[in-house]
Protein backbone atom coordinates (compact mmCIF):
# COMPACT_ATOMS: atom_id res chain seq x y z
CA UNK A 1 0.00 0.00 0.00
CA UNK A 2 1.09 3.54 -0.70
CA UNK A 3 2.62 5.11 2.41
CA UNK A 4 1.08 8.47 3.38
CA UNK A 5 3.90 10.86 4.28
CA UNK A 6 3.52 13.15 7.26
CA UNK A 7 2.61 16.68 6.19
CA UNK A 8 4.47 18.18 9.16
CA UNK A 9 7.74 16.49 8.24
CA UNK A 10 7.58 17.55 4.61
CA UNK A 11 6.49 21.04 5.66
CA UNK A 12 9.67 21.49 7.73
CA UNK A 13 11.71 20.40 4.72
CA UNK A 14 9.91 22.86 2.44
CA UNK A 15 10.16 25.69 4.97
CA UNK A 16 13.96 25.43 4.88
CA UNK A 17 13.97 25.94 1.13
CA UNK A 18 11.01 28.34 0.72
CA UNK A 19 10.46 30.28 3.97
CA UNK A 20 6.85 31.22 4.78
CA UNK A 21 5.39 29.21 1.91
CA UNK A 22 3.56 26.72 4.17
CA UNK A 23 0.63 28.13 6.15
CA UNK A 24 -0.14 25.07 8.23
CA UNK A 25 0.57 21.37 8.23
CA UNK A 26 -1.03 18.33 9.80
CA UNK A 27 -0.48 14.61 10.00
CA UNK A 28 -1.87 13.93 6.55
CA UNK A 29 -1.65 17.17 4.59
CA UNK A 30 -0.03 20.56 4.28
CA UNK A 31 -1.47 23.90 3.27
CA UNK A 32 0.59 26.01 0.89
CA UNK A 33 0.26 29.66 -0.09
CA UNK A 34 -1.21 30.10 -3.54
CA UNK A 35 1.70 32.27 -4.69
CA UNK A 36 4.32 29.67 -3.85
CA UNK A 37 2.34 26.62 -5.02
CA UNK A 38 4.20 26.20 -8.27
CA UNK A 39 7.69 26.32 -6.78
CA UNK A 40 6.71 24.01 -3.93
CA UNK A 41 5.16 21.58 -6.42
CA UNK A 42 8.28 21.67 -8.58
CA UNK A 43 10.39 21.05 -5.47
CA UNK A 44 8.22 18.08 -4.45
CA UNK A 45 8.46 16.63 -7.92
CA UNK A 46 12.18 16.93 -8.45
CA UNK A 47 13.75 16.51 -5.00
CA UNK A 48 15.51 13.14 -4.61
CA UNK A 49 13.86 11.18 -1.83
CA UNK A 50 10.46 12.76 -2.50
CA UNK A 51 10.10 12.31 -6.29
CA UNK A 52 6.37 12.99 -6.58
CA UNK A 53 6.24 12.06 -10.23
CA UNK A 54 2.52 11.31 -10.41
CA UNK A 55 -0.47 13.56 -9.75
CA UNK A 56 -3.30 11.26 -8.66
CA UNK A 57 -6.09 13.82 -8.48
CA UNK A 58 -7.01 17.46 -8.05
CA UNK A 59 -10.24 18.50 -6.42
CA UNK A 60 -11.71 21.77 -5.27
CA UNK A 61 -13.95 22.47 -2.29
CA UNK A 62 -16.15 25.51 -1.72
CA UNK A 63 -16.05 26.61 1.94
CA UNK A 64 -18.05 29.83 1.31
CA UNK A 65 -15.21 32.06 2.59
CA UNK A 66 -12.62 30.51 0.34
CA UNK A 67 -12.01 27.80 -2.22
CA UNK A 68 -9.62 25.02 -1.28
CA UNK A 69 -7.86 23.10 -4.05
CA UNK A 70 -6.50 19.72 -3.04
CA UNK A 71 -3.62 18.02 -4.87
CA UNK A 72 -3.05 14.32 -4.20
CA UNK A 73 0.53 13.48 -5.12
CA UNK A 74 2.07 10.05 -5.43
CA UNK A 75 5.59 8.87 -6.01
CA UNK A 76 5.62 5.73 -8.11
CA UNK A 77 9.33 5.37 -7.41
CA UNK A 78 9.09 5.28 -3.61
CA UNK A 79 5.43 4.27 -3.34
CA UNK A 80 4.48 7.12 -1.03
CA UNK A 81 1.87 9.86 -1.20
CA UNK A 82 1.19 13.38 0.04
CA UNK A 83 -1.79 15.73 0.09
CA UNK A 84 -1.07 19.38 -0.70
CA UNK A 85 -3.78 21.99 -0.29
CA UNK A 86 -4.01 25.62 -1.25
CA UNK A 87 -6.63 28.28 -0.73
CA UNK A 88 -8.10 31.02 -2.83
CA UNK A 89 -9.98 33.80 -1.04
CA UNK A 90 -11.10 35.91 -3.99
CA UNK A 91 -14.59 34.71 -4.88
CA UNK A 92 -15.21 36.93 -7.89
CA UNK A 93 -12.00 36.16 -9.69
CA UNK A 94 -10.15 33.24 -8.09
CA UNK A 95 -6.77 32.55 -9.69
CA UNK A 96 -4.18 29.88 -8.91
CA UNK A 97 -1.04 28.83 -10.77
CA UNK A 98 -1.44 25.87 -13.11
CA UNK A 99 0.65 22.74 -12.55
CA UNK A 100 0.20 21.39 -16.10
CA UNK A 101 3.83 22.24 -16.82
CA UNK A 102 4.83 19.73 -14.12
CA UNK A 103 2.17 17.04 -14.47
CA UNK A 104 0.33 16.76 -17.82
CA UNK A 105 -2.44 14.88 -16.01
CA UNK A 106 -3.52 18.14 -14.44
CA UNK A 107 -4.77 19.40 -17.81
CA UNK A 108 -8.31 17.97 -17.79
CA UNK A 109 -8.74 18.19 -14.03
CA UNK A 110 -7.89 21.87 -13.89
CA UNK A 111 -10.30 22.43 -16.75
CA UNK A 112 -13.00 20.56 -14.84
CA UNK A 113 -12.39 22.72 -11.75
CA UNK A 114 -12.49 25.82 -13.93
CA UNK A 115 -15.72 24.60 -15.49
CA UNK A 116 -17.60 23.61 -12.35
CA UNK A 117 -16.00 25.78 -9.65
CA UNK A 118 -14.85 28.79 -11.65
CA UNK A 119 -11.23 28.87 -10.52
CA UNK A 120 -8.84 30.12 -13.22
CA UNK A 121 -5.47 28.43 -13.52
CA UNK A 122 -2.78 30.80 -14.67
CA UNK A 123 -0.48 29.26 -17.27
CA UNK A 124 -2.89 26.52 -18.36
CA UNK A 125 -2.42 25.95 -22.11
CA UNK A 126 -6.11 25.40 -22.90
CA UNK A 127 -8.33 26.70 -20.12
CA UNK A 128 -11.95 26.34 -21.25
CA UNK A 129 -15.05 24.44 -20.22
CA UNK A 130 -14.74 20.67 -20.46
CA UNK A 131 -18.00 19.13 -19.19
CA UNK A 132 -20.52 21.88 -19.81
CA UNK A 133 -20.92 23.74 -23.05
CA UNK A 134 -19.50 27.07 -24.06
CA UNK A 135 -22.01 29.79 -23.18
CA UNK A 136 -23.31 28.11 -20.01
CA UNK A 137 -23.80 30.68 -17.27
CA UNK A 138 -22.27 30.15 -13.84
CA UNK A 139 -20.26 27.41 -12.18
CA UNK A 140 -22.60 24.73 -10.81
CA UNK A 141 -20.45 23.21 -8.05
CA UNK A 142 -20.27 26.52 -6.20
CA UNK A 143 -22.45 26.52 -3.12
CA UNK A 144 -24.25 29.67 -4.20
CA UNK A 145 -25.15 28.33 -7.65
CA UNK A 146 -28.84 28.08 -8.27
Amino acid sequence: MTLALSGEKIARQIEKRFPESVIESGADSLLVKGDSLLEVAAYLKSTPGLDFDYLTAITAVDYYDYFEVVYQLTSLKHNHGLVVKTRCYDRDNPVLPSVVSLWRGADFQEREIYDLMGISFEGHPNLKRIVLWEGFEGHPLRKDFL
Partner: protein
Amino acid sequence: MEVDEVYSSRKLDEVEGKAINELIARSQETIPDPDGWLDEELKRNILLTTVDAVINWGRRSSMWPVFCFPACCAFEFMTTAASRFDISRFGMEIVRASPRQADLMITAGTLTWKMAPQVKRIYDQMAEPKWVIAMGACAISGGIFRSSYSVVPGYNRIIPVDVYVPGCPPRPEALLYGIGMLHKKIAKMSITSGDGE
Protein backbone atom coordinates in the same frame (compact mmCIF):
# COMPACT_ATOMS: atom_id res chain seq x y z
CA MET B 1 3.17 24.99 -24.99
CA GLU B 2 4.03 23.30 -28.28
CA VAL B 3 1.11 20.89 -28.03
CA ASP B 4 -1.58 23.48 -28.82
CA GLU B 5 -2.66 21.61 -31.94
CA VAL B 6 -3.90 18.62 -29.92
CA TYR B 7 -6.71 20.73 -28.44
CA SER B 8 -10.02 21.24 -30.20
CA SER B 9 -10.60 24.75 -31.43
CA ARG B 10 -12.41 27.23 -29.25
CA LYS B 11 -14.43 28.34 -32.26
CA LEU B 12 -15.90 24.85 -32.59
CA ASP B 13 -16.84 24.91 -28.89
CA GLU B 14 -18.57 28.24 -29.30
CA VAL B 15 -20.60 26.98 -32.26
CA GLU B 16 -21.60 23.90 -30.25
CA GLY B 17 -22.50 25.97 -27.19
CA LYS B 18 -24.60 28.33 -29.28
CA ALA B 19 -26.52 25.40 -30.81
CA ILE B 20 -27.17 23.93 -27.35
CA ASN B 21 -28.36 27.24 -25.90
CA GLU B 22 -30.67 27.75 -28.88
CA LEU B 23 -32.09 24.25 -28.47
CA ILE B 24 -32.73 24.90 -24.76
CA ALA B 25 -34.52 28.14 -25.61
CA ARG B 26 -36.65 26.33 -28.21
CA SER B 27 -37.48 23.39 -25.93
CA GLN B 28 -39.14 25.07 -22.97
CA GLU B 29 -42.49 23.45 -23.79
CA THR B 30 -43.16 19.73 -24.12
CA ILE B 31 -44.06 18.39 -27.53
CA PRO B 32 -47.62 16.96 -27.42
CA ASP B 33 -47.84 13.17 -27.71
CA PRO B 34 -48.97 11.98 -31.16
CA ASP B 35 -52.62 11.03 -30.61
CA GLY B 36 -54.16 11.35 -34.09
CA TRP B 37 -54.38 7.56 -34.25
CA LEU B 38 -57.05 7.56 -31.53
CA ASP B 39 -59.63 8.89 -34.00
CA GLU B 40 -58.48 6.56 -36.75
CA GLU B 41 -61.09 3.90 -36.01
CA LEU B 42 -63.89 6.40 -36.69
CA LYS B 43 -62.85 7.51 -40.16
CA ARG B 44 -61.49 4.20 -41.37
CA ASN B 45 -61.97 3.70 -45.10
CA ILE B 46 -63.54 0.34 -45.70
CA LEU B 47 -61.78 -0.21 -49.03
CA LEU B 48 -58.34 0.25 -47.57
CA THR B 49 -58.81 -1.71 -44.37
CA THR B 50 -57.17 -4.85 -45.71
CA VAL B 51 -54.28 -2.89 -47.22
CA ASP B 52 -53.82 -1.10 -43.92
CA ALA B 53 -53.88 -4.38 -42.05
CA VAL B 54 -51.15 -5.85 -44.23
CA ILE B 55 -48.98 -2.72 -44.13
CA ASN B 56 -49.36 -2.30 -40.38
CA TRP B 57 -48.61 -5.96 -39.83
CA GLY B 58 -45.42 -5.50 -41.84
CA ARG B 59 -44.46 -2.32 -40.04
CA ARG B 60 -44.93 -3.62 -36.55
CA SER B 61 -43.40 -7.02 -37.22
CA SER B 62 -39.99 -5.68 -38.11
CA MET B 63 -39.33 -2.53 -36.13
CA TRP B 64 -35.63 -1.90 -36.07
CA PRO B 65 -34.42 0.23 -33.17
CA VAL B 66 -31.74 2.85 -33.59
CA PHE B 67 -28.84 3.30 -31.19
CA CYS B 68 -29.85 5.85 -28.57
CA PHE B 69 -28.64 4.53 -25.23
CA PRO B 70 -27.09 7.42 -23.28
CA ALA B 71 -27.23 5.85 -19.81
CA CYS B 72 -27.95 2.86 -17.61
CA CYS B 73 -31.33 1.83 -19.07
CA ALA B 74 -29.22 0.55 -21.96
CA PHE B 75 -28.27 -2.46 -19.85
CA GLU B 76 -31.90 -3.33 -19.38
CA PHE B 77 -32.38 -2.97 -23.12
CA MET B 78 -29.44 -5.33 -23.72
CA THR B 79 -31.08 -7.85 -21.40
CA THR B 80 -34.29 -7.46 -23.35
CA ALA B 81 -32.42 -8.00 -26.57
CA ALA B 82 -30.48 -11.02 -25.31
CA SER B 83 -31.58 -14.63 -25.29
CA ARG B 84 -33.69 -14.77 -22.11
CA PHE B 85 -36.19 -12.12 -23.17
CA ASP B 86 -35.27 -12.14 -26.84
CA ILE B 87 -36.85 -9.25 -28.76
CA SER B 88 -36.12 -11.08 -32.00
CA ARG B 89 -39.49 -12.70 -31.29
CA PHE B 90 -40.89 -9.37 -32.52
CA GLY B 91 -38.48 -8.99 -35.44
CA MET B 92 -36.54 -6.30 -33.55
CA GLU B 93 -33.19 -7.91 -32.92
CA ILE B 94 -31.34 -5.78 -35.45
CA VAL B 95 -30.30 -2.60 -33.65
CA ARG B 96 -29.20 -0.22 -36.33
CA ALA B 97 -26.30 2.18 -36.04
CA SER B 98 -27.70 4.15 -38.95
CA PRO B 99 -30.90 6.12 -38.33
CA ARG B 100 -31.76 5.72 -42.04
CA GLN B 101 -32.47 2.03 -41.47
CA ALA B 102 -34.42 2.35 -38.23
CA ASP B 103 -38.11 2.85 -37.40
CA LEU B 104 -37.98 3.02 -33.63
CA MET B 105 -35.99 5.01 -31.12
CA ILE B 106 -35.86 3.45 -27.65
CA THR B 107 -34.53 6.32 -25.58
CA ALA B 108 -32.81 4.35 -22.85
CA GLY B 109 -31.25 6.82 -20.46
CA THR B 110 -30.67 10.27 -19.02
CA LEU B 111 -30.20 12.89 -21.69
CA THR B 112 -28.06 15.96 -21.06
CA TRP B 113 -28.53 19.18 -22.95
CA LYS B 114 -25.06 18.79 -24.37
CA MET B 115 -26.12 15.50 -25.98
CA ALA B 116 -29.62 16.66 -26.96
CA PRO B 117 -28.78 18.19 -30.38
CA GLN B 118 -27.24 14.91 -31.50
CA VAL B 119 -30.25 12.85 -30.37
CA LYS B 120 -32.58 15.27 -32.13
CA ARG B 121 -30.48 15.01 -35.26
CA ILE B 122 -30.62 11.18 -35.17
CA TYR B 123 -34.41 11.35 -34.76
CA ASP B 124 -34.70 13.81 -37.66
CA GLN B 125 -32.61 11.52 -39.85
CA MET B 126 -34.88 8.52 -39.30
CA ALA B 127 -37.21 7.82 -42.21
CA GLU B 128 -40.98 8.08 -41.71
CA PRO B 129 -42.93 6.35 -40.30
CA LYS B 130 -41.00 6.41 -37.03
CA TRP B 131 -41.83 5.89 -33.38
CA VAL B 132 -40.27 6.69 -30.02
CA ILE B 133 -40.45 4.73 -26.77
CA ALA B 134 -39.36 6.77 -23.73
CA MET B 135 -37.77 4.12 -21.53
CA GLY B 136 -37.32 4.82 -17.83
CA ALA B 137 -37.90 7.71 -15.46
CA CYS B 138 -35.17 9.91 -16.95
CA ALA B 139 -36.53 9.56 -20.45
CA ILE B 140 -40.08 10.34 -19.30
CA SER B 141 -39.42 13.35 -17.09
CA GLY B 142 -35.71 13.63 -16.29
CA GLY B 143 -36.26 11.39 -13.27
CA ILE B 144 -34.21 12.24 -10.21
CA PHE B 145 -32.14 14.63 -12.33
CA ARG B 146 -35.16 16.68 -13.39
CA SER B 147 -34.14 19.85 -11.56
CA SER B 148 -30.53 19.59 -12.69
CA TYR B 149 -28.90 22.36 -14.68
CA SER B 150 -27.69 20.02 -17.38
CA VAL B 151 -30.38 17.37 -17.88
CA VAL B 152 -33.25 17.43 -20.37
CA PRO B 153 -36.45 17.04 -18.32
CA GLY B 154 -37.99 14.40 -20.56
CA TYR B 155 -37.32 13.48 -24.18
CA ASN B 156 -40.65 15.00 -25.14
CA ARG B 157 -38.97 18.39 -24.93
CA ILE B 158 -37.10 17.63 -28.13
CA ILE B 159 -38.93 14.75 -29.89
CA PRO B 160 -42.53 13.45 -29.86
CA VAL B 161 -42.91 10.32 -27.72
CA ASP B 162 -45.39 7.52 -28.51
CA VAL B 163 -45.07 5.18 -25.53
CA TYR B 164 -43.79 5.86 -22.01
CA VAL B 165 -42.32 2.93 -20.07
CA PRO B 166 -41.89 3.81 -16.38
CA GLY B 167 -39.28 2.28 -14.08
CA CYS B 168 -35.78 3.05 -12.90
CA PRO B 169 -34.77 1.13 -14.90
CA PRO B 170 -37.85 -0.69 -16.27
CA ARG B 171 -37.56 -4.44 -16.18
CA PRO B 172 -37.37 -6.19 -19.55
CA GLU B 173 -40.97 -7.33 -19.10
CA ALA B 174 -42.02 -3.69 -18.81
CA LEU B 175 -40.16 -2.75 -21.96
CA LEU B 176 -41.72 -5.70 -23.80
CA TYR B 177 -45.15 -4.55 -22.59
CA GLY B 178 -44.35 -1.08 -23.94
CA ILE B 179 -43.38 -2.58 -27.27
CA GLY B 180 -46.70 -4.46 -27.23
CA MET B 181 -48.52 -1.15 -26.66
CA LEU B 182 -46.73 0.34 -29.62
CA HIS B 183 -47.73 -2.67 -31.75
CA LYS B 184 -51.36 -2.04 -30.82
CA LYS B 185 -50.98 1.60 -31.76
CA ILE B 186 -49.43 0.78 -35.13
CA ALA B 187 -52.23 -1.69 -35.83
CA LYS B 188 -54.69 1.22 -35.73
CA MET B 189 -52.79 3.40 -38.20
CA SER B 190 -54.01 4.06 -41.72
CA ILE B 191 -52.02 5.00 -44.80
CA THR B 192 -54.80 7.35 -45.89
CA SER B 193 -54.07 9.82 -43.12
CA GLY B 194 -50.56 10.66 -44.22
CA ASP B 195 -47.26 9.89 -42.59
CA GLY B 196 -47.95 7.52 -39.75
CA GLU B 197 -50.48 9.82 -38.16
